[in-house]
């Protein structure tokens, strides 16, 4: 994990450095772009900090199991609140700060500012973090006053996922790539309007951006003191307000979060949906499917991820609709078919990413209640294949949707349409089996949050193997596809030796697909049978 973290850190630094170097080389608007980028980055970090503080504050101030001890101690309530609030600020801000550092280092390396930049970065960074923390904690206290803490978590997660999905789609549909191509705009005024970010002089990020930019551009820093004063007075005022509000409502909110709430389950629509899905299965398999579907759709942190998935599909397909194929020097029919072929690989990687979140944790999702399956007369083999069957259909639909929609936009030949959808159809079996099988090989029945299961060693191994599986299929099919497409485009027959190569390659593909289904499932079954 440390290696992955360091690699991501280095990538972020390298990318920021290259972008800023490029901006510097663009006359007139280069500095403008760098200035706006700084504002946008700080705004993103500020939003992330607020969101992160809300989630962490819920856990540290209301849901953590050691809180009962803290509140039973003779410490005054404001001391308990302050100690947990400070812990929350540290807990939720370190990661944003660590990953903000490479971007700021890239700015410093490109613009070579004086000592004042580093000093301002340090103290204003701390000030902005405190403001985000105070705001996030304040919002959490108010929300818990309105809803029970458990329900608040669901509401926040749902809003967070919707917000993230919406932001992702909005960002992509705005086509940010046009900003580095001013020729695409009719006038400079239109271009400048497109550059306007969500900035306001009342935002702490604006005060920080202007201060840092004054140092970076070596312009007169007349407003540095004013902006610093604004930032720290706001941070101080918000902290004081937090303590006052905490004295008034924190304990009553905590007390409310301890009360068990009767939760009546929403039924009618779910009953109908579950009955439809499980109809073709035997009672014991239907029972497992019934239970899994109900658990999934009643967990707001689970089903809401489907919204993100929807946004992903929309953006994925949209990307193909704006591909500038007409600008390419390569013959368009060849390019269309080549992209369609490699799209099988790309869609396979997308399915792997979806699988690591939804299918890999399928076995672990049984949690501590797995004893019920173990002590029941349902054999583990049937249990595993039921999980496989449950996830196969939605994954087939998703895979084929990605392939058929993009192929339709690319206007590929019928041969390529048939080949890519058949390859995707069969690959889905392998990806789903890898997900279920490896999930059984690396189960985590003691998780607190099912989303954590995917981030462990097993999840990483699954991602690597699933990506390798998809890549191998693409590599093995590339040769025969090239021969067949070229023969079709040129209007010539395929030679005898070429047919041998084609048959051998496709046979190898079928063998690998069968092995990708059989092997992980048998290994998963063995590991699960021996799990203690």
């Amino acid at each position, binding site marked *: 994990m440390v290696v992955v973290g360091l690699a991501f850190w280095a990538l972020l630094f390298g990318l920021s450095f290259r972008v800023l170097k490029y901006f510097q080389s663009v006359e007139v608007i280069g500095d403008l772009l760098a200035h706006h980028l700084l504002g946008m980055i700080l705004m993103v970090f500020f939003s992330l900090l607020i969101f992160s503080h809300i989630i962490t504050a819920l856990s540290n101030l209301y849901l953590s199991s050691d809180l009962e001890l803290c509140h039973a101690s003779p410490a005054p309530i404001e001391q308990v609140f302050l100690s947990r609030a400070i812990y929350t600020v540290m807990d939720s801000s370190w990661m944003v700060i660590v990953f903000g550092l490479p971007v700021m280092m890239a700015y410093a390396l490109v613009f070579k500012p004086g000592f004042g930049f580093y000093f301002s970065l340090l103290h204003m960074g701390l000030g902005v973090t405190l403001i985000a923390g105070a705001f996030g904690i304040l919002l959490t206290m108010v929300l818990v006053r309105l809803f029970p803490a458990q329900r608040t978590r669901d509401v926040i997660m749902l809003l967070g996922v919707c917000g993230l999905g919406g932001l992702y789609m909005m960002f992509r549909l705005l086509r940010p790539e046009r900003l580095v191509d001013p020729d695409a705009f009719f006038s400079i005024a239109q271009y400048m309007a497109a550059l306007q970010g969500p900035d306001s002089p009342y935002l702490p990020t604006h005060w920080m951006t202007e201060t840092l930019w004054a140092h970076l551009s070596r312009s007169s820093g007349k407003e540095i003191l004013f902006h610093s004063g604004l930032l720290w007075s706001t941070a101080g005022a918000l902290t004081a307000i937090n303590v006052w509000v905490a004295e008034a409502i924190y304990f009553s909110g905590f007390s409310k979060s301890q009360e*068990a709430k009767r939760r009546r389950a929403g039924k009618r629509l779910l009953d109908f949906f579950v009955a439809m899905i499980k109809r073709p299965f035997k009672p*014991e398999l239907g029972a497992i499917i019934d239970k899994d579907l109900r*658990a999934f759709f009643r967990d707001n942190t689970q089903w809401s991820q489907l919204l993100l998935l929807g946004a992903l599909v929309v953006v994925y397909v949209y990307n193909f609709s704006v591909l500038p194929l007409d600008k390419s020097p390569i013959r368009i029919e060849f390019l269309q078919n080549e992209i369609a072929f490699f799209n099988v690989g790309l869609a396979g990687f997308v399915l792997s990413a979806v699988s690591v979140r939804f299918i890999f944790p399928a076995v672990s999702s049984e949690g501590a209640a797995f004893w019920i399956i173990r002590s029941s007369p349902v054999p583990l083999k049937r249990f595993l294949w039921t999980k496989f069957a449950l996830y196969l259909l939605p994954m087939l639909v998703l895979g084929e949707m990605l392939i058929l929609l993009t192929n339709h936009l690319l206007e590929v030949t019928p041969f390529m349409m048939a080949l890519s959808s058949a390859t995707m159809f069969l690959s889905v079996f392998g990806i789903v089996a890898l997900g279920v099988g490896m999930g059984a090989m690396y189960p985590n029945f003691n998780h607190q949050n099912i989303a954590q299961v995917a981030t462990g060693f097993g999840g990483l191994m699954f991602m690597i193997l699933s990506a390798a599986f998809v890549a191998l299929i693409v590599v093995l099919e590339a040769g025969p596809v090239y021969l067949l497409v070229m023969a079709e485009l040129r209007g010539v027959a395929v030679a005898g030796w070429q047919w041998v190569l084609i048959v051998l390659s496709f046979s190898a593909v079928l063998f690998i697909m069968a092995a990708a289904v059989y092997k992980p499932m048998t290994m998963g079954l063995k590991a699960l049978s021996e799990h203690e």
Partner: protein
Amino acid sequence: MIKLIHLTKTYKELRAVDDLNLEVKEGSLFGFLGPNGAGKTTTIKMMAGVLKPTSGRIIINGMDLAEEPEKVKQCIGFIPDRPYLYEKLTGMEFMKFIAGLYGMDHASSLQTRIRDLLEMFDLTHWRDELIESYSHGMKQRLVMCSALLPQPKVLIVDEPMVGLDPRGARLVKDLFMEQSRKKTTLFMSTHSLEVAAEVCQEIAIIQAGKIIARGTSEDLRKASGVDGSLESVFLKLTEGKRIAHATPLSAS
């Protein structure tokens, strides 16, 4: 009805159950006592098919658990010490889920049986609430309902009284005695000597993975030479071995 033959379970450095041999007759209410870490829960989990023995055999209803696990599990009801359940199901849905796992059809007789069991355990008003809002005792009662649903021939129970209020505990004791009268075999581990003395027809005491005594309460009194409560008998029999838990392999 239940036969444990040379049953052994080792965890890396630890022998939790050590060459255990035991036979329980049909319809008997068998108490399994022992200090903390003696191997009670490990033995029970192996009998329920949740843990795999290192060696030895478990014969239930004339069938070997290792050879015919599905058939054996079909006639077992298991009640673990901690009631971990599927929190996002309602009580009623959980009962139907169990019925599905045991291949029971969804006829009206099943609905009636589920309703009767929920009524018996005072859960009728909570049957459409998510299990996540149940208290510990309610979850424990729901597990008991689900274990009784397939009408098992053998009930394997680990610490049944934990988390139950006095009324719930009384209900469970009466229920176990009634089940025994109906020829259901009960194998129950407990810390509560009072419960064991009240309901069990036969008792075995396990220490460091081995059975150190077995018989009726009277037999145990004779064996220990103590003419007092079962608590005194238990303390006498496990005397000097109070800190001896399961045997480390290096010591054997």
